[in-house]
C-alpha cells in the first residue's frame, strides 16, 4: 500500500523527562517504577517474537540493559515508552530470527472466510452473508471472560505473524494509541489500521469457532 502521509509522532512527556533525569542520576525507585509500568507489557510483546518463556524473559532483561546503556543518548524525540519498546523490538527480532513463524500472510488477506458470503455471480445476494452471525449477546459475560476463552485469545494471538500480533497487543491489550504504535513501528496510520484489522479479524474468527461450540 502506498501512503505518503508522514508518520505520527509522540514525544516525551514532562513526567517522562523528570523520570529520565532521575534515572540518569541512578535513582532506583525511578527504575523500579519504570519496570513495573512497562515490564509486563514488554514480556507480553517479547513472547510474541520468541515462544519460549525463558527466552522471552532474557529478551526483556537484555532490552533493559540496552536501555540503561543508551540512557545518556536518549534525546526525548519519541516518548520514553516508545523508545524502550523500540529497543525491546530490536532485541526480540534478533532472538527470533531462527524462529520464523509459519503462517503465510496471504491467509490474512480477508477478514472473514470467503465461503461465508454468496459469490459474485449470485443474481441477488452477491457478497451477502450465507449464514447468520451471532452477536454473542447470549454468551454470558462470565464465559466470555473465563480463563479458557482468554486462553483461546492468547492462542490465536500467538499464531499470528509477530508484526500483526504486536500491533494488536499494543492497541487492544495495552491500550496504546494509534499514533504511538505507528511511531514505534514506523507505520503510517493507514497501514497500521490494515494490520490491526486483519489481526482482530483472526482473533474474532478463533473466538467464534470456540464460543459457538456448545458450552462444555
Amino acid at each position, binding site marked *: 500500500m502506498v501512503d505518503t502521509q508522514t508518520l505520527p509522532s509522540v514525544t516525551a512527556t514532562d513526567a517522562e523527562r523528570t523520570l529520565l533525569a532521575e534515572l*540518569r*542520576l*541512578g535513582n*532506583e525507585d525511578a*527504575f*523500579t517504577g519504570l*519496570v*513495573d509500568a512497562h*515490564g*509486563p507489557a514488554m*514480556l*507480553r510483546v517479547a513472547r510474541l517474537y520468541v515462544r519460549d518463556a525463558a527466552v522471552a*524473559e532474557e529478551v*526483556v*532483561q537484555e532490552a*533493559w*540493559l540496552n536501555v*540503561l*546503556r543508551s540512557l545518556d543518548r536518549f534525546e526525548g524525540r519519541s516518548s520514553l515508552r516508545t523508545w524502550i519498546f523500540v529497543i525491546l523490538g530490536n532485541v526480540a527480532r534478533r532472538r527470533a530470527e531462527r524462529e520464523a513463524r509459519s503462517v503465510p500472510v496471504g491467509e490474512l488477506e*480477508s*477478514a*472473514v472466510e*470467503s465461503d461465508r*458470503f454468496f459469490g459474485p455471480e449470485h443474481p441477488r445476494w*452477491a*457478497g*451477502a*452473508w450465507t*449464514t*447468520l*452471525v*451471532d*452477536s*454473542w*449477546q447470549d454468551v454470558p459475560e462470565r464465559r*466470555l*471472560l473465563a480463563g479458557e*476463552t*482468554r486462553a483461546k*485469545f*492468547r492462542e490465536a*494471538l500467538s499464531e499470528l505473524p509477530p508484526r500483526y500480533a504486536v500491533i*494488536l497487543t499494543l*492497541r*487492544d*491489550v495495552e*491500550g496504546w494509541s*494509534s499514533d504511538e504504535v505507528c511511531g514505534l513501528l514506523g507505520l503510517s*496510520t*493507514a497501514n497500521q*489500521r*490494515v494490520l*490491526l*484489522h486483519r489481526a*482482530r*479479524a483472526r*482473533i*474474532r474468527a478463533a*473466538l*467464534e469457532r470456540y464460543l459457538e461450540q456448545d458450552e462444555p
Partner: protein
Amino acid sequence: MIERHVFTCRELVELVTEYEEGALATEERLAFEHHVAICPPCRGYLAQLRRTIRLGEAVRDDELPEPLRAALIDAFRDWRRASGR
C-alpha cells in the same frame, strides 16, 4: 428483505476497523451505519468484533515474574555501580 447497499456484507466486514477508528469519510460512514442498521448478520459481526476488542483488556496480567523483576533490579545496581552514579 435486504435492499441493495452501497457496500455488500463482504465489503462491509473489511471496513469495520476504519469505521471504529473514525477513518471513514462521512458518506461511507453513513452508508456503513445504514447497512448495519438493517442487516442482522453484519450487526452480529460488529458486535463480535467489539467484544473481541474488549476481551483484549482481559488478557492483560500485570505483574512480572518476581525472579525477573529481581534480576532487573540487580542489573540496575550493577549498571549504577559500573557507571559511577
